[in-house]
């Protein structure tokens, strides 16, 4: 099908004049213009409560903007949803407690109208380091394990657009670095456009091609920092000077966005 070949290009995300307030006059997003290059991984960092999750939900089509619009590869979020092209891993893992890890992934496939694929499910579970826990129920997993299961569920449908809301907040540093090494390779081969929210500057640098720093609510983009480190990024990369320069730059931007004086960079 022609449409398919066209959409096989990693989709570009365009937010044009996007704004959102909540009842009670809480303005979360001012009109916001943003373009995410197809196939790239973008990290959003910003203070708690600034509107990161809200932006993700708008892009996923779970929330309607007050003004402006979102397009994903030229289509509306609703259209892309129906094609099973969007997946989101939510801030709280929200796995269904009555389904096993395997069952949770299988349901995602079913919801996305995709054929059952036990092999792909198990490979995905293994990729996030949960091999051996395929038949465990969420209650029997640790917080970090649940988060990884949620990421696996979001990825098993091979979405064109992957939205990850603080996916590894409760994951230990070592596993996190391993995932930061494994997951982007998969996104690259699949042509996934990824938008990820994180509170960890190091995680942003490890995973992303580009980091957007947001100000406190209402969220503006105060810095747009390209991450030029080559992929794949081995865990040892955190010892390189380029890594630390980037991390310092992001941190200064966060402080500046919050109206504080940027810290002196170490000599």
């Amino acid at each position, binding site marked *: 099908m022609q449409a398919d070949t066209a959409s096989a290009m990693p989709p570009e995300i365009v937010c044009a004049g996007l704004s959102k307030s909540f009842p009670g006059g809480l303005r979360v997003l001012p009109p916001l213009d943003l373009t995410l290059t197809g196939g790239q991984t973008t990290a959003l960092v910003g203070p708690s409560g600034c509107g990161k999750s809200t932006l993700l*939900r708008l892009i*996923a*089509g*779970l929330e309607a903007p007050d003004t402006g619009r979102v397009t994903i590869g030229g289509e509306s979020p*609703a259209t*892309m*949803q*129906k*094609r*099973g092209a*969007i*997946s*989101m891993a*939510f801030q*709280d893992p*929200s796995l*269904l*407690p*009555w389904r096993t890890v395997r069952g949770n992934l299988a*349901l*995602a496939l*079913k*919801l*996305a109208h995709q054929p059952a694929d036990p092999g792909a499910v198990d490979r995905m579970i293994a990729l996030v380091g949960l091999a051996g826990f395929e038949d465990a*129920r969420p*209650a029997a997993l640790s917080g970090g394990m649940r988060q990884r299961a949620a990421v696996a569920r979001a990825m098993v*449908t091979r979405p064109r657009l992957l939205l990850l809301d603080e996916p590894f907040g409760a994951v230990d540093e070592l596993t996190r670095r391993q995932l930061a090494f494994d997951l982007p390779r998969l996104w690259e081969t699949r042509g996934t456009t990824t938008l990820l929210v994180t509170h960890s500057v190091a995680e942003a640098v490890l995973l992303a091609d580009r980091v957007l720093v947001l100000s406190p609510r209402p969220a503006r983009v105060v810095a747009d920092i390209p991450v030029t480190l080559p992929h794949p990024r081995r865990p040892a990369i955190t010892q390189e000077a380029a890594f630390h320069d980037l991390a310092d730059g992001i941190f200064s931007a966060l402080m500046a966005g919050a109206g504080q004086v940027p810290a002196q960079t170490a000599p």
Partner: protein
Amino acid sequence: MTRADRLGGGRFRAGITAGVGLLILLLLWEVLARALSGQFLLAAPAEVLSWLNAQRGLMTRALIQTLANAAAGFLAGNLVAIALAGIAFVWPRTERPVTGLALLIFCLPLVATGPILRVLLGPGNGPQIWLAALAVYYTTLIPLLVGLRAAPASWLDLVRSHGRGRWAELIHIRARAALPYLFAGLQIAAPAAFLGAMVGEFTGAERGMGVLTIRFIRAMDVPAIWALASVAAAVSILAYASIGWLARAVLTEPPPVILAPPRAARARRWSGLRQMLMTGGLALLLWWAAMQALDLNRFFAKRPGDVFDALFLAPDAGAMRATLGSALLETAVYLLPGYLAGLALGAGLAALIVLVPPLAALAMPLAVALRSVPIVTTAPLIVLALGRGAAGTTALVAVMVFFPTFVACLHGLRQAPGQIMDVFDSHAAGRLSRLIHVRIPAMLPAFFAAARVSVPAAILAVTVVEWLATGRGIGSLMALSASISDYDMLWASVVVVAVLSVLCHAGVAALERRVLRRYAPEQEEP
């Protein structure tokens, strides 16, 4: 107590405590019976067993008959409940009228609906099955409605993020998330169906436990009454336990506490009243339409207009109102103190008992078991013990209210979220301070849910005991009217009792909203 203790503790241990509780109960019973021997009050367990052995055949036939009717009513009532919950969920606009009407019908006094159904349906098992269905559908409908809305928003977001709609939500998320609530409702329904079938048998059935109850009460056959009560209790407890067992086999999550949260107070001032009036109007319309459509004889199938005439326009309307009024007053005098005492005792004892955890472990299974003992068999017993006066009736109402309140409150007290309890543990806070700051606020919704459901239960209890034993009040008036075919009076008392129950229920719900808003705002429905 560690968190793990609170969560699990082991089914085996629970079984043992339940067994110990039962043993203690039997012992107490035997001791008491010996102490009271010669007063024709209490038959000892041994006496009951020998009676049962002698009357095996009679008892088995009656039991099978009642069980069959109860099962049919249980099935029908619950299917209707599931259908109604589905309708209310799919068309949210119908939810208020559906739940309002359901409550009104649930508040119809079985003692009077029984005889009316008997004349409408004629001989056979019809009224027994109908009453069993009427006794169960409401307690399934409400938890189910809560359960269908119990899924957290992020589960639904998952469905929507894949572009799927309400159907996928219902099938993949809500139906399954509601399952624990359905089971909890079914568990309460099982003993209730048995009770409903027995009340149905009071109205001139040929066979069944209800028929035997009436016969033995007339004859004051003490061992027989106790044997009936024991069998009915055992059957009810078994039904309750086996549905609990089934739920544990099917479900992976712990059972929920059924709260049926009151609706958010977003409504405008008068919308509650308007809703009530609309529901009332709808009920009258349905009543009239049903009677017309079935073309039933006006002599026993009264229409709304007939009842209005009898109450306000007929020459003897004044006398009728006076009779009704004095009967109601007589009932209220016993009902209110019993209701309040039952609530206070249930909540108070539950609060006390969590201060002594080993006691709670013992009391819980006992109370759960005793809650399912059918009122129709305990009524004669309590009256036997306390006499036909105020004490007996009031005690009976209190008992009827006590058990559900106690069980709900104990559930609620234990509900206190694990993490919050951990915070208190980490500050080494004492049991009392935890009780006051965490557990009682967590208990309030459960308490009020019990208080609401107890309104019709208390009315059922008081009318049954008035009918079976004391011969006064509205229950007796209804029984008398049925026996002398005074259908004007019978229908009028049904209407008045149902309306009063609904009003009391609404009053409790209003109080609940005010209290919860102040003391436990996070417990209100979002």
